[in-house]
């Protein structure tokens, strides 16, 4: 009896030990990148000045630069990256499709459409929200898109193939509506919308960061509590059903919270592509699909990618901050391609 437990424990420890080590290591690497990110910038502070400013032991300007500009941006990179990684992880899980991300199913197009309404037409769906017009619009349309998908899947008892198809249709719909708005926009508005759509963290402040942290942590807790159910979703639907899991319900709930993550990230930072796709992919290679590790790893890898991208977009062209969405895609795609090719070889 004890021998069986012992043998089982040995295997179990072999399986989880590496994952725990990597998760711990990643947390330190992310903290390190966070400090670097706060240090790097155009104001020309030295490392010791930066540290002094973090400790609020420097001149007012330095403290202002560090506390009001760099820290919220650096922390946002970490939390938005984590949100994108998590959203991608769960979207890939419930759709059992490695090409899915938070932006699949037209969720980000819906958010962009809301932003376009705000930037170009200055139309607010909820009247009287003032400066929050863009955020409110994005959030509303993303949740609307999610609601339509959920209602649709409820009505048709839809499997994932139909959900994906319907999501693609929504994607085109909102994409076309956004194009329509761009078509009628004047030059100035068009420019500011295009710039918004590049994806950027420069507009982040403590307030927006707090909302991002809240949503990210909330969704993490919700997903983590369903870790085993979500893990079972990576088996076949029938297999998951035979384990007593209501696969359609899990799918619908997850879409709702992924939409919340997508809405938050897009409305605050625009569309930052690729992180949500690649982070779960890397996480899966490390941890497999046990959600107790797959979920945190996806979040951490997403956080690290965006944190590094945030550093890069400040140092690549000195004196300019490039849009972070461009960096993640341009640097990320060759890297990602190399990774896939390498892995394919190791499987053969």
């Amino acid at each position: 009896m004890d021998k069986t437990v012992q043998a089982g424990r040995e295997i179990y420890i072999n399986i989880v030990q590496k994952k725990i080590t990597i998760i711990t290591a990643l947390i330190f690497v992310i903290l390190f990148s966070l400090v670097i990110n706060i240090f790097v910038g155009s104001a020309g502070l030295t490392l010791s000045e930066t540290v002094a400013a973090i400790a609020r032991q420097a001149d007012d300007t330095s403290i202002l630069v560090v506390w009001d500009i760099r820290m919220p941006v650096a922390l946002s990179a970490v939390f938005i990256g984590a949100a994108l990684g998590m959203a991608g992880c769960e979207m890939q899980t419930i759709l059992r499709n490695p090409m899915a991300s938070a932006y699949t199913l037209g969720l980000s197009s819906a958010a962009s459409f809301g932003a376009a309404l705000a930037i170009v037409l200055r139309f607010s769906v909820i009247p009287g929200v003032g400066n929050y017009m863009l955020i409110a619009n994005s959030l509303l349309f993303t949740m609307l898109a999610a609601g339509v998908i959920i209602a649709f899947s409820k009505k048709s008892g839809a499997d994932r193939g139909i959900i994906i198809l319907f999501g693609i249709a929504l994607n085109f719909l909102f994409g076309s509506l956004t194009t329509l708005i761009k078509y009628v926009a004047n030059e100035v508005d068009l420019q500011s919308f295009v710039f918004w759509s590049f994806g950027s963290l420069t507009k982040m402040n403590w307030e927006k960061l707090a909302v991002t942290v809240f949503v990210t942590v909330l969704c993490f807790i919700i997903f983590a509590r369903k870790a085993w159910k979500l893990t079972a979703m990576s088996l076949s639907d029938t297999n998951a059903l035979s384990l007593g899991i209501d696969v359609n319900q899990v799918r619908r709930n997850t879409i709702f919270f992924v939409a919340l993550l997508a809405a938050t990230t897009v409305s605050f930072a625009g569309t930052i592509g690729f992180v949500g796709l690649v982070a779960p992919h890397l996480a899966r290679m490390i941890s497999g699909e046990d959600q107790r590790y797959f979920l945190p790893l996806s979040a951490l890898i997403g956080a690290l990618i965006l944190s590094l991208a945030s550093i890069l977009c400040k140092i690549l062209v000195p004196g300019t901050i490039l849009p972070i969405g461009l960096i993640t895609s341009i640097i990320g795609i060759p890297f990602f391609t190399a990774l896939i090719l390498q892995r394919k070889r190791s499987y053969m």
Partner: protein
Amino acid sequence: MISIDSLTFRYGTAPVFENLSIDFKKNLNVVIGPNAAGKSTLLKCLFGLLKAQGTICWEGNDLSSLSKDERRNIMAYLPQEEMPATYLTVFEVALLGRISSLSWHITDRDLEKVYGALKGLHIETLAERFAGEISGGQKKLVSIAQTLVRDPKVILMDEPTNSLDMQKQLELFDVIHQIIADKDIKFIIVMHDLNLSCRHAEQLTILDGNGAVYASGSPKDIVTEEMLRNVYGVEANVIYDNKGIPVVSPIRSL
């Protein structure tokens, strides 16, 4: 063991079977029948994935009076399709069988059950491999391990020998016989292969193409040339081996 009484199931208005009554009495029960006879549907109704009219009893107790969890404690169900290319280790797939009692922390009991099941099936050396990258026969065993960790009383299997070669098919039945002997678990298995069914079934139930029971009993008594004509629409020879087990040799479609 499990008995069903006037079970009716319809997809829309078209009945798959009507007023079906079968009494599964033995340890190893096999259900055969032509395509679209409702074999898989019957298993899904037994397990509760599909809701049929009529009564299903376990040891004389109506299953509809039990909760979902209680029902799943009695029965486990192995679907027909092969496990997808999942990035879960064999150990984790088997562990998922205990999902109703799993928490973030894995208990000694979980470890014991999972390792015990893998070892019993002689696949403990695969435990750390991804379930997506092992062979078809091994995947089937992993699926069985996933049901065994729950200590079910009955295991329902839908065409488990599909896509297995001859040796793996025989090995699978060795495993099933051993589970019956060691753990006193009963099986209801849907099959296509008549000869394999005749060799291993203690009780064979033949569904005809119209979703009715053509015969149920010992293979020796019910697998006849006449049955093959009536149920499958084929001309076939039935010969008997030295143990008196019928062996079917099909000749042509009628």
